[in-house]
């Protein structure tokens, strides 16, 4: 599995030298950014069993904080990035403190309502966020590499971040905090009875997931140099949920496969048909009813079925 991961990474790194199209590299960068975001959501969903419908909040907030720090506060870009990567996990902890007041399925409802409030705030407080127009021309360095298409820079940066993200999430999953989180997912009462601080574990995982969501938001800002309230809309959170569900919850690779599939589908569909949410909505229903454990697991099961049939009597 590990060897396969490195091979995929090497192949992905070779892409800009083979594919000499800026469009495909831009879509590729979108896939990688979406993959980071989906993996961060899966920390909550897969490891923690916390179905957050407001995960786009951290992504959007990171883009906004960095954009405002660069334009209004005139910070240098490394400082703006550090500020964002510190601030967003803190907000994530605050967000979780509110949402975790409710248990079980009510959690879903509160995360959605909180996400909506952030969207409404970005739309309405025109003085701070410029409202619906968003913040254009954010002064970030353009990452151009001589001799390669202009999107190659952001593509490499995103790929590096994804590798770091996967490695840290893997370490997290095997760490005592990660295993404790999986414990609180399966048996919250027993974990509490064993003396684990269930709330503390969940809050720390929110901070961790918030960090990588913020990284994805920053990469989005690096790619577009623009942010508007659209980053907060429910459709964005829904697309990311779809990536995780399509790929399969509670696997490390599932969300990455899901992100690549969803962004690919979205880019192809958008060329011929302007109503992407119709397709994503139908995919939701289809995946949930037909492939409840995602494509990665579905493929694994299909392979088992085929192998069984071949070795059968």
């Amino acid at each position, binding site marked *: 599995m590990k060897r396969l991961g490195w091979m995929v990474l090497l192949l992905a790194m070779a892409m800009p030298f083979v594919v000499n199209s800026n469009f495909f590299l831009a879509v590729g960068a979108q896939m990688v950014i979406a993959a980071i975001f989906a993996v961060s959501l899966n920390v909550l969903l897969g490891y923690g069993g916390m179905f957050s419908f407001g995960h786009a909040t951290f992504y959007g907030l990171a883009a906004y904080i960095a954009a405002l720090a660069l334009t209004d506060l005139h910070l240098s870009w490394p400082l703006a990035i550090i500020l964002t990567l510190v601030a967003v996990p803190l907000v994530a902890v605050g967000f979780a403190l509110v949402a975790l007041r409710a*248990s079980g*399925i*009510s959690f*879903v409802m*509160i995360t959605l*309502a909180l996400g909506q409030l952030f969207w409404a705030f970005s739309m*309405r407080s025109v003085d701070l966020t410029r409202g619906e127009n968003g913040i254009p021309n954010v002064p970030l360095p353009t990452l151009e590499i001589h001799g390669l298409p202009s999107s190659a820079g952001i593509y490499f940066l995103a790929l590096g971040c994804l590798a770091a993200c996967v490695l840290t999430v893997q370490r997290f999953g095997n760490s005592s905090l990660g295993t404790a989180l999986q414990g609180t997912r399966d048996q919250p009462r027993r974990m509490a009875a064993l003396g684990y601080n269930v709330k503390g574990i969940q809050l720390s995982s929110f901070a961790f997931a918030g960090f990588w969501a913020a990284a994805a938001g920053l990469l989005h800002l690096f790619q577009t140099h623009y942010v508007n309230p659209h980053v907060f809309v429910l459709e964005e959170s829904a697309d990311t949920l779809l990536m995780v569900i399509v790929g399969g919850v509670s696997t490390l690779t599932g969300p990455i496969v899901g992100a690549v599939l969803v962004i690919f589908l979205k880019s192809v569909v958008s060329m011929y048909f302007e109503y992407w949410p119709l397709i994503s*909505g139908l995919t939701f229903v289809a995946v949930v009813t037909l492939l409840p454990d995602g494509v990665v697991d579905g493929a694994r099961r299909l392979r088992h079925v085929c192998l069984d049939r071949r070795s059968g009597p």
Partner: protein
Amino acid sequence: MAFITIMTLNALSFSGLLFLLSAGFSLIFGLMRIPNMAHGAFFLLGGYIGAQAISAGIPFVASMVIAGAGMAAVGFVIERFVLRRLFGHELGQVLAMLGLSLVIATVCLMLWGGMPIQAASPSFATGAVHVGALVFPAYRLFIVAASIVVGVLLWFAIDRTRLGATIRAGVDDSAMAQAVGIRVSALFTTVFCVGAALAGMAGTLAAPLLSVYPGLDVQMLGLAMIVVVVGGVGSLLGSVVGSVAIGFIYTFGQALFTEFAFALLFIVMILVLAVRPQGLFGRLA
């Protein structure tokens, strides 16, 4: 003084819409244990159907009934063919409803386009009503009256009829209700259809006031969720109190400090969650 009276009426009429929307949402949540992600989409589609019927010359109240019946039919199909297949798999149900809400909203966008559609208010409730020196828009009074009527009917149905008693039993303990011979699965269908119908009627009622436009679904869904978080799940009284509270805070907040109306909702939600995580009238599961 006149400002406060008019604003109070505005707040009450918005509360009425929120109540019609959140009562169904709360009942569905109470009985079936799922937040219906498509409730805002039901509101939106109901609004479009109602506005279409009104512009076709159908009387207002009949249009409301058509929108309600249409949404009940949609609810029936969804409950029977999607939710039932995922019985006992709550997160799957939530995700499927989220998907269906995207589908419904997009179909609305394809059929009615992106421009807001404002329905004509009914002839019996156009213009203004003069009370002393004060002037009230008649249509807002009509919304308040309509939501009170529906509220009383709902209360009567839930509190005083046999069907209502079985619904309450299902909300309290659905396994036990099933054990004593109540057909809980039929209740699920009934409550889901009634909830969808209420959302559709609320959409029609909102069409002359807010007009119907893409994005209204998620906005209303978010507000309905805040109402239910504040009021508590599965309680009609909770929906009433939550709707009035949120209606007033939202309306006065918008008028007095536009930018922070949503921050105010946020603070109220946090306060309620801090003091009573199950909502003002909710019971701990």
